[in-house]
């Protein structure tokens, strides 16, 4: 009797905390290969790990050698990292290369991590935005263009090559131990800037819940675009209060003033192109994903905020 072949999965963005959680959940049942273009990380002897630029030719060798069945693409460079040009190359051209190779080597399942930032923060946003809403982010800031382009690209491949079974996930703010994105850094700090008089509604998902969502999505080959967010909401300034952050108000009107101040200060934790997200709400509707993949986040907001309150500067 031949032993059934374990699924071979390529996971990108291996240096990130989210990828590590996904790897932790899958390593017992799947043969994983981890790549990251920023750094090589050690993930144990059973998981080969590479530091590779997706646009380089050697990347294809991995597909030849490991005969992947699926790809989990978490290697998205966040808007706060690198220059606009390098980020565009990595996120858009890198993803295109990845999807081309996936098609060439007969991959049967692709999960792509996007972000709720693609919807853009505008004053006229309705709440509970669903997946068919227009992506306004590109029109608001050139720094978010690559996020929207990555989505467009994945969408084109989703329809052109249905056999790839592409699922695009648009999560709300991912937070929790080890997360290094803008919002997590803010919640973890002693003092956090706020725009005076604005406290938009926000949604937060714990990193372990998000990893669970990705694994569930990978295991059920349903194509499409899905928001991922718990059915719980909190105002930004209230969240900071619960995390024990002192709030530093920045003058908010006229709109030029906060942009000018933030551009001058060049705060990494409060970049000027994300200003709108601290002013206007982008509340997404995650019910379609929850229904389709039988997903229910396990960690409540209070637990998430307690972690930040008790662990100032956890990373």
């Amino acid at each position: 009797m031949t032993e059934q072949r374990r699924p071979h999965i390529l996971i990108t963005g291996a240096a990130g905390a989210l990828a590590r959680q996904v790897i932790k959940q899958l390593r017992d049942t799947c043969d994983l290969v981890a790549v990251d273009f920023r750094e090589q990380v050690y993930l144990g002897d059973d998981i080969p790990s590479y530091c590779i630029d997706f646009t380089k030719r050697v990347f294809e060798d991995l597909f030849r050698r490991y005969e992947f069945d699926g790809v989990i693409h978490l290697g998205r460079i966040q808007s706060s990292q690198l220059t606009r040009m390098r980020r565009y190359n990595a996120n858009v051209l890198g993803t295109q290369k990845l999807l081309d190779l996936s098609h060439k080597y007969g991959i049967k399942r692709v999960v792509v991590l996007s972000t709720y930032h693609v919807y853009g923060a505008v004053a006229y946003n309705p709440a509970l935005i669903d997946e068919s809403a227009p992506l306004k982010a590109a029109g608001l800031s050139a720094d978010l263009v690559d996020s929207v382009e990555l989505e467009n690209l994945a969408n084109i491949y989703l329809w052109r090559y249905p056999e790839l079974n592409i699922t695009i996930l648009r999560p709300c703010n991912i937070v929790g131990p080890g997360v290094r994105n803008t919002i997590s850094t803010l919640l973890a700090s002693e003092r956090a800037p706020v725009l005076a008089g604005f406290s938009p509604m926000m949604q937060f998902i714990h990193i372990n819940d998000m990893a669970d969502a990705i694994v569930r999505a990978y295991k059920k080959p349903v194509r499409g675009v899905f928001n991922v967010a718990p059915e719980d909401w909190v105002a930004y300034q209230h969240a900071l209060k619960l995390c024990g952050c002192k709030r530093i108000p920045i003058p908010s009107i006229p709109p030029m003033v906060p942009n000018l101040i933030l551009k001058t200060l060049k705060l990494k934790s409060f970049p000027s192109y994300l200003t709108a997200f601290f002013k206007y709400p982008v509340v997404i509707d995650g019910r379609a994903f929850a229904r389709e993949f039988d997903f229910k986040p396990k960690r409540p907001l209070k637990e998430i905020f307690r972690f930040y309150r008790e662990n100032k500067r956890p990373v």
Partner: protein
Amino acid sequence: MSLASYLKSKLIPADVDEHINRIRKPIGSLGYDPWGYNNEAMKYGFSLTRLIYEKYFRVEAHGVDNVPAEGPVLIIANHSGQVPLDGLLIGFALASREQQPRIPRAMIERFFPTVPWLGNLLNEMGAVLGDPVNCAKMLANNEAVIVFPEGIRGSGKLYRDRYQLKRFGNGFMHLAMKYKAAIVPVGVVGCEETIPAIANIKPLAKALGIPYAPVAMPVVLPAKVHLNFGAPMYFDDLEIPEEQVTERVDKVKAEISRLIDKGLTERKRLF
């Protein structure tokens, strides 16, 4: 006792606290809903509005029990008085009724979310950006929603045009039909006299990015307000041409007009 809890005990009487808690809203673990409604903030708002409602405008509300106790409802009223006091008073009338109170949601101008403090404050009290998607999602959530189909055409009108209904948009009727929501017409009398405006400085409004810039006294006059709630109206969800939708809207408009006339007849004096 901390300052916050001391203030709360002074500002929010126990009966208000209990009353708001009794009205179960679909909120998350921290007391918020997706549109920013907050139960705790609502209690302050309720206590303050009670003073304005009972002492300042001495509101007389008739037929508030016409609003169904549950299910999606659109409360449709005439808009007047430069600032959305009419929405606040209708909301309070329904939230404070003895039998099966409801906290309705008011659809507000697109300009409010851009105003610091005020935008968030209105959201916490249940007001929501006037977007058809918001209204649809709330009706799907079985909320009662206050809509002024005249929009700024109504609230920005001048004193000489008082109690003349402006054009009604058809959007509310489409939503009512789609979500099988009851329509409760309301005639508001008295708000026209709260901030009587004699002119609108359009260039100034444009420069400030606000809907209108009225020439009026910088005070809100204590006019006595009469609210008349009509019987709920139901419309089927058949696919019909826009012309017939407009006819249905006109029916609601005629009913509101009748309720306004009723209020005007009931009114003994302006203040």
